[in-house]
């Protein structure tokens, strides 16, 4: 089986995309990633009590052309749909979400997962018209900088789904 995604490679992608702020509620799939970000002085890390706060914080930062990423679990994404719609989608605000698909089975497509929440994540993003990609194996990280650029150049939300625990 291919290697899991690299946290260091994701950090490099975020730097390449000029991300300054990272807001997060802890997630097992991205724990290594947030650990690296917290230690890296080129980011301002904002711990959240609840994921929907991060939707607003990240959107607000875009008014100063300052880039931000929200790192959450798919459960937090579901909990934040009203904010995603009422803050970002309706007002065409950029929002970059890195969403960990908690306990997705390796090698299984998200919508084929036996974890109901995981299987619903892509369909929900599609209903919300939010473009998304899956980062599931080593090498997939290289898509991230371009997607962040796209979110800010088109002023729309995007989602990067993390299918395996990053290392």
């Amino acid at each position, binding site marked *: 089986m291919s290697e899991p995604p690299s946290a260091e490679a994701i950090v490099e992608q975020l730097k390449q995309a000029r991300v300054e702020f990272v807001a997060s509620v802890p997630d097992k799939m991205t724990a290594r990633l947030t650990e690296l970000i917290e230690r890296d002085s080129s980011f301002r890390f904002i711990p959240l009590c609840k994921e929907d706060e991060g939707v*607003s914080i990240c959107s607000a930062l875009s008014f100063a052309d300052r880039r931000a990423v929200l790192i959450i679990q798919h459960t937090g994404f579901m909990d934040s749909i009203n904010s995603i*719609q*009422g803050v970002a989608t309706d007002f065409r605000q950029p929002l970059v979400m890195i969403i960990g698909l908690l306990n997705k089975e390796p090698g299984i497509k998200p919508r084929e997962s036996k974890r109901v929440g995981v299987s619903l994540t892509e369909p929900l993003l599609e209903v919300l018209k939010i473009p998304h990609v899956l980062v599931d194996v080593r090498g997939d990280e290289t898509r991230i900088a371009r997607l962040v650029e796209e979110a800010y150049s088109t002023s729309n939300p995007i989602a990067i789904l993390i299918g395996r625990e990053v290392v």
Partner: protein
Amino acid sequence: MLRPECLRVLAAHRTDEIVVSIFRAAFEWMALSPSDLNFTFVKAMGQIAPYGLGLALAFPKRRVIVIDGDGGLLMNLGCLVTVANAGPRNLIHLTCNNGIYETTGGQAIPASERISFSGLARAAGYPIVYEVDDLGEWEILVPRLLSAEGPVFVNLIVAPPPEPYPEDWGAAYSRERQKSFKQAVMSR
């Protein structure tokens, strides 16, 4: 004291602050202090304090005033901890506490007779917390607030006006106004 009376006092002292508001208070504020620096582009209840935090971090040299509601704050109480922990010195968080969900017909908020928003803010870590139920006291406090190092929290005990201000949702959510806000906040 009536909420528009409080907002009128704040408007009299306003210079170039960003002011974030929602629902009824937003319509009153837009009438009392029209400005391109009024931010009303949030439809999700419970989100204006986090939004204010984002704007305060985005524009650290500007003062950001959030005019929250008690029902909205209850919907997202954790944001008190998030804001206090981030510690933006340029953020003033006002909560208009009338004890009811005004826009849905005046239903009481949970525990309206017992809850202490100033106590919650203090416990969450806001370094400066006030509770104000007197207009004269508010008139004295406002100039101090606008030069204080925050984050500051103020629980304003208010009543809605006898006649609601006209609701202009189109203006509150206007894409044109959103663009004007960005131009104003980036250019001044």
